[in-house]
């Protein structure tokens, strides 16, 4: 799906847990997420801590969208 959205001309960032799969399917901007059932959260934390984690990931995603890349890039911290 990521690849088809990219093909259509829209910059896209893939926020996902299993980075090797994302690389295999051909995503260009990849932000590694927390875990499979809660990529942008962490139920072991409080709601406000979770929201901070989520905010951090979304900020990373937006930063990835604003970064020129020439090949598949994984945006880690």
């Amino acid at each position, binding site marked *: 799906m990521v690849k088809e959205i990219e093909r259509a001309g829209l*910059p896209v960032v893939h926020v*996902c847990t*299993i980075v090797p799969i994302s690389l295999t399917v051909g995503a*260009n901007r990849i932000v590694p997420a927390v875990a*499979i059932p*809660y990529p942008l959260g962490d*139920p072991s934390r409080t709601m406000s801590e979770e929201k901070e984690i989520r905010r951090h990931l979304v900020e990373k995603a937006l930063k990835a969208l604003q970064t*020129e890349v*020439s090949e598949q890039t994984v945006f880690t911290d």
Partner: protein
Amino acid sequence: MSYRIVHYINQFYAGIGGEEKADVAPEVREGVVGPGMALKAALGSEAEIVATVVCGDSYFASNIEKATAGILEMMKKYKPDAVIAGPAFNAGRYGTACGGVCEAVVKNLNIPAVSGMFPENPGVEMYKKSFYIVETPDSAAGMRAAVPAMAKLVLKLLRGEKIGTPAEEGYIERGIRKNKFYDKLAAERAVDMFTAKLKGEPFVTEYPMPVFDRVAPNPAVKDMKNAVIALVTSGGICPKGNPDHIEASSASKFGEYDITSVMDLTAEAYCTAHGGYDATYADQDADRVLPVDVLRDMEKEGVFKKLHNKFYTTVGNGTAVASAKKFATEIASRLKADGVTAVILTST
């Protein structure tokens, strides 16, 4: 003396549980477990499954290096002559785990490894060059066909017999080229193929070209302050009750949902339709998969201009690549028509 085989399976096939148990750490059991029974029958007296290593699919996917190392240590103790993993059919995480384990076995233990997967399983693209993956149907309904084919191939490898072409042996092409002698000259064979093609008759190429489907990255967003950001997910988030009946696996459709004035995805209003991961956490708070709450905050702060008023969702669980492609093409054209600048796509 019969050959010693260690079998690798996931928590589901070991009878531990479904998605709610997908985070169990690796463990080893003596003898056969689950699909090992059928495998044992297919192997006959020539080989014995001495142990079965079980690992949760999510555990493996989230701890690839640690899990692989641990599993390898467990296997070593049983002095295997070969390892069989799966079959994983079209289960993505399971296929990735089977692939990772088999690759490590071949590289570190120097013994053959065989798995079985549906060709669209992401584990195939990732690991087909490293070891033999028998082609299977997309679901466990194909177990009866998969098991004998895997057993046959592993026995051949153990005996050191020559392995034939992918078509002859039933494994997925590994991208290995072998020299072969023909009675007919290459020029004659080429002309034969050409004339067959002209007549519309079937012919088989001797050199299939690899298919590379890569899309170059689009330029970065330059003016985020004026950007419209859209959310798309393969994590199945949808209004509570799943009004469009998006399937829990092998989705045949995607949903488009209006989030005008929705500031937060609450448990009362949203859930997930996805059947391939433990839905507990997404059902409690769908923002954990589709971060609407945070994006609304940032929209208010003026980080970007607008969160697009619709989000798009489907279930990426055994869904055919062709379907996903079709959904995304349609979604992208709607997003473009609506003036969206960039997309955040989340996957579970």
